[in-house]
C-alpha cells in the first residue's frame, strides 16, 4: 500500500483541474484497494464512488453520468476492454469534426524517396521475424490502393491501385543486396495485380542474377495467377506466399464481394504444391459471416483440406469493423451495433457475440480442422522438413509460437520427424553479412541528418505492437514485429522536402520502449513539438491509454494521429480531446503541409482558418473543442502514477 496515497495526492493536489463536485470515481473490484482509497478520499473530505470494472461500457457510462463524476481513477488493466474516449466524456456529444477536402492519391510512387532506414534501429528489426518468416530481411511496400470491394474491409485507401515501377523496386532491393541482405518481404496485399510491372520486377531479379528469397506474407490474389507467372516468381526466389481464401462458399464469396474464383485459386495452389513443394503456403480464411450456415463454413474447411498441403492455414473469426459494409450487413441481419462495438477489442481467434453460428459449433469446427488437417502426421512430415530447409529452427519456432502457441519441437516429436536431417538445408539463404555490418552500411548510405538550431522536433510513434506488460494485460501473444515502414516514408519525404527543418524521431512500442516510464523518458529527453502516432484498430484502447498518459505526464504538444485506425475512425477518435488532429489516408503530402504550416506558426498548430486549407485532415474547430472539453472527465491511470509524479 502507499500507491493509493500517491494517487489521491496527485489527483487532488492541484495537478488535475476541473473537479465539479466532491465525488471521486474509483474503478476497482479489489476490496483491499477500495478500502485504502476510501480511507484516503475520506481523509481529504471527498466522497468515493466505486465503479465495478466488470460492468458493461454502457452501464459504466450511465453510472458516471448519473453521479456527474468529473474524476475517475482506474488501473491500467481495467481499461483494456473499455472505450476510453467514451469514459472521458461526461455527456454524449453530437458535434461533428471538420473534415477538409480529400487529399488526392499519390499516383507516382516513384516520386517518393526510398525510405531512409537509418531512421530506425535496424539491428532490432533484422533480428526478429515480421510478417515474413525470416529474420534477416528487408520489408518493402511496392503498391497502394485496392480496386476490390470486399465488404469486411474499411476501404481506407483509394480504389486505384498504383505500383512503383519495376526499376524503382529493383533499385531498393539491389541497394540492400549490396549490403548483404538476401531476404526480402513484400508487404503489399496484392502485389500481382499489375501483372506487367510485377513480371518485370521478377525479370530484373533474374537478369541481374540476384540470389534472394522473396516472401509475400500479406497475400497475392490467387485466382488471377497464371502458371507461367508462378514459374517466373518462384524462379526469381519466391519462397512464401499467403493466399486469402476467406470462404469456400460461392454464395458467401458473392455476398462479401470478394468474388474469388475458387476453381482458379484451387488450380493454381495445386500447381504450386505439386511443382514447387518447397514454397511455404499460408492460407487465410474466416468464419462467422452474417447468414453463414454450418454447411457453408464446412465448405471452407473442405477447400483447405482438399489441398496437400498448406503450411500455415488460418481460421479467423470474422471481425466486424464499424463503418464498413459488413457492419451494415450485420445490422440488417440482427446483430446489434452495441454487440459489434463490444467485440472490437477481441482478437481474431476469440469467440465474439457477433457470431450467428453457435460458439459450440465454432469450437468444434476449429478443433476438427486442427486435429484432422493441421495435426495430420502425413502433412507435418511433408511440410516441416521443407520448412527446415528454407528457414532456421529459430525462425520456425517463432512462427509456430505466433501461429498456434505451439513450439516446433512438440510438432516434430508428435510427427516423429528426424530434425537433424533437414536443419538449415540447401534452400536457406543466409545474409552474407552480420546484422551489425548491414546496419552500419545502411547508416553510411543515408546522409547524416543535420538540423537547423531551431528545427521543429517531431516524435513519430508506432503503436501497432504492445509493450511486454501491456501484452500480458490483454493476453496478447502475437510477437510479430514489423519495422515502421509507413513512418519512415513520412519522415524521409519531409527530410527531402524540408531539409534540416524537421528533426523526426521514429519509435515503436516494444522496441524503442518497453514500458511507459521509458516512453516518458524519451519524451522528456527529446522534447518534441508534435507527437504523431499511427496504429491499427485492434490497438485502439492501447493508443488512447498512451495518449492519456502523455497528457497525465503534462506534455502539451499537439498529438496527431494517422494510419489505418485514424483514417477509419476519426470521428470517434477526436472525441478524445487529448488528440488534436487526424490525418486521413496517405500521409506524406499532408504531413509535409501540416509541418510547413506549423513551422510558419512558431511550431504550434495553426488556427482553424489555416487548418481548413489543408486537404486530408479532420479536427474539431476551437470553439467545438472547447465545448467537448467542458464535458471531459479526468481519467487517471493509477497504476502509472509512479511514471507521473
Amino acid at each position, binding site marked *: 500500500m502507499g500507491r493509493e496515497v500517491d494517487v489521491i495526492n496527485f489527483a487532488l493536489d492541484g495537478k488535475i483541474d476541473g473537479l465539479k463536485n466532491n465525488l471521486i470515481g474509483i474503478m476497482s473490484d479489489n476490496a483491499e484497494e477500495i478500502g485504502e482509497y476510501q480511507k484516503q478520499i475520506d481523509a481529504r473530505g471527498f466522497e468515493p464512488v466505486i465503479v465495478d470494472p466488470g460492468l458493461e461500457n454502457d452501464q459504466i457510462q450511465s453510472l458516471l453520468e448519473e453521479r456527474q463524476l468529473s474524476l475517475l481513477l482506474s488501473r491500467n488493466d481495467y481499461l483494456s476492454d473499455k472505450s476510453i474516449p467514451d469514459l472521458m466524456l461526461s455527456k454524449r456529444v453530437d458535434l461533428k469534426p471538420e473534415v477538409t477536402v480529400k487529399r488526392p492519391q499519390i499516383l507516382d510512387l516513384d516520386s517518393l524517396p526510398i525510405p531512409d532506414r537509418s531512421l530506425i534501429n535496424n539491428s532490432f528489426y533484422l533480428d526478429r521475424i515480421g510478417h515474413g518468416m525470416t529474420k534477416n530481411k528487408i520489408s518493402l511496400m511496392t503498391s497502394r490502393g485496392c480496386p476490390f470491394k470486399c465488404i469486411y474491409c474499411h476501404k481506407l485507401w483509394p480504389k486505384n491501385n498504383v505500383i512503383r515501377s519495376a526499376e524503382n523496386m529493383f533499385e531498393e532491393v539491389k541497394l540492400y543486396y549490396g549490403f548483404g541482405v538476401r531476404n526480402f518481404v513484400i508487404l503489399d496485399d496484392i502485389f500481382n495485380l499489375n501483372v506487367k510491372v510485377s513480371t518485370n520486377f521478377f525479370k530484373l531479379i533474374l537478369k541481374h542474377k540476384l540470389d534472394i528469397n522473396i516472401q509475400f506474407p500479406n497475400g497475392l490474389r490467387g485466382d488471377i495467377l497464371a502458371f507461367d507467372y508462378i514459374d517466373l516468381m518462384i524462379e526469381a526466389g519466391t519462397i512464401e506466399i499467403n493466399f486469402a481464401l476467406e470462404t469456400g462458399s460461392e454464395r458467401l464469396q458473392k455476398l462479401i464481394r470478394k468474388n474469388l474464383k475458387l476453381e482458379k485459386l484451387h488450380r493454381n495452389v495445386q500447381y504450386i504444391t505439386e511443382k514447387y513443394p518447397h514454397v511455404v503456403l499460408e492460407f487465410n480464411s474466416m468464419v462467422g459471416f452474417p447468414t453463414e450456415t454450418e454447411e457453408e463454413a464446412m465448405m471452407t474447411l473442405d477447400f483447405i483440406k482438399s489441398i496437400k498441403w498448406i503450411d500455415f492455414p488460418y481460421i479467423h473469426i470474422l471481425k466486424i469493423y464499424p463503418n464498413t459494409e459488413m457492419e451494415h450487413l450485420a445490422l440488417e441481419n440482427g446483430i446489434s451495433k452495441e454487440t459489434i462495438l463490444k467485440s472490437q477489442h477481441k482478437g481474431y481467434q476469440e469467440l465474439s457475440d457477433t457470431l450467428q453460428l453457435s460458439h459450440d459449433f465454432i*469450437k468444434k469446427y476449429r478443433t476438427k480442422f486442427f*486435429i484432422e488437417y493441421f495435426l495430420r502426421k502425413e502433412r507435418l512430415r511433408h511440410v516441416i522438413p521443407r520448412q527446415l530447409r528454407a528457414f532456421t529452427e529459430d525462425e520456425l519456432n517463432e512462427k509456430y509460437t505466433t501461429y498456434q502457441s505451439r513450439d516446433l519441437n512438440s510438432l516434430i516429436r508428435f510427427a516423429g520427424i528426424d530434425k537433424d536431417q533437414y536443419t538449415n538445408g540447401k534452400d536457406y539463404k543466409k545474409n552474407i553479412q552480420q546484422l551489425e555490418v548491414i546496419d552500419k552500411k545502411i547508416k553510411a548510405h543515408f546522409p547524416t541528418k543535420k538540423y537547423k538550431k531551431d528545427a521543429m522536433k517531431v516524435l513519430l510513434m508506432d503503436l501497432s505492437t504492445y509493450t511486454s506488460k501491456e501484452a500480458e494485460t490483454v493476453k496478447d501473444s502475437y510477437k510479430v514485429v514489423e519495422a515502421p515502414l509507413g513512418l519512415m516514408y513520412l519522415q524521409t519525404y519531409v527530410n527531402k522536402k524540408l531539409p534540416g527543418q524537421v528533426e523526426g524521431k521514429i519509435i515503436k512500442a516494444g522496441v524503442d520502449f518497453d514500458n511507459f516510464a521509458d516512453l516518458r523518458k524519451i519524451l522528456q529527453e527529446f522534447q518534441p513539438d508534435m507527437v504523431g502516432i499511427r496504429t491499427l484498430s485492434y490497438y485502439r484502447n492501447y493508443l488512447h491509454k498512451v495518449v492519456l498518459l502523455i497528457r497525465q505526464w503534462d506534455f502539451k504538444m499537439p498529438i496527431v494521429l494517422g494510419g489505418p485506425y485514424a483514417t477509419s475512425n476519426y470521428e470517434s477518435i477526436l472525441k478524445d480531446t487529448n488528440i488534436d488532429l487526424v490525418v486521413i489516408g496517405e500521409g506524406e503530402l499532408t504531413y509535409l503541409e501540416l509541418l510547413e504550416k506549423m513551422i510558419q506558426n512558431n511550431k504550434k498548430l495553426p488556427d482553424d482558418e489555416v487548418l481548413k486549407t489543408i486537404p486530408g485532415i479532420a479536427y474539431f474547430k476551437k470553439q467545438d473543442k472547447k465545448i467537448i472539453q467542458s464535458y471531459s472527465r479526468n481519467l487517471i491511470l493509477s497504476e502509472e502514477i509512479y511514471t507521473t509524479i
Partner: protein
Amino acid sequence: MATVTIERAQLVEELKKYLSERFFLTDDYRTLPIDESILDLGVESLDFIQVLEDIKEIYHIVIDDDDVLFENFETVNKIADFILQKVINL
C-alpha cells in the same frame, strides 16, 4: 501394457482423472461428465496434440492419421470407445 481385458468402467474413470488433472477441468474428477464435449469442459483445440500423445503413450496404442477424427475424441465415452477398439485390435 494394456491388454484386451481392460475394463471399460475403469478406463472411463482413468480418462476422467487424466483429463481433469492434465487440463485442470474440475477439482473432483469423479464429477466430470462423460458424454459432454470435452471442448465444453475446458479442453482447448490446441490441447488435442497433448491428448493424442498421452493416450498413445499411456495405452500403448498406435494412432494413425485416419484415426484422428474429432468424433473419436469428442467425449470421454468416445475416447474410451476408441481406445478399447484399438486395444482389441492389437
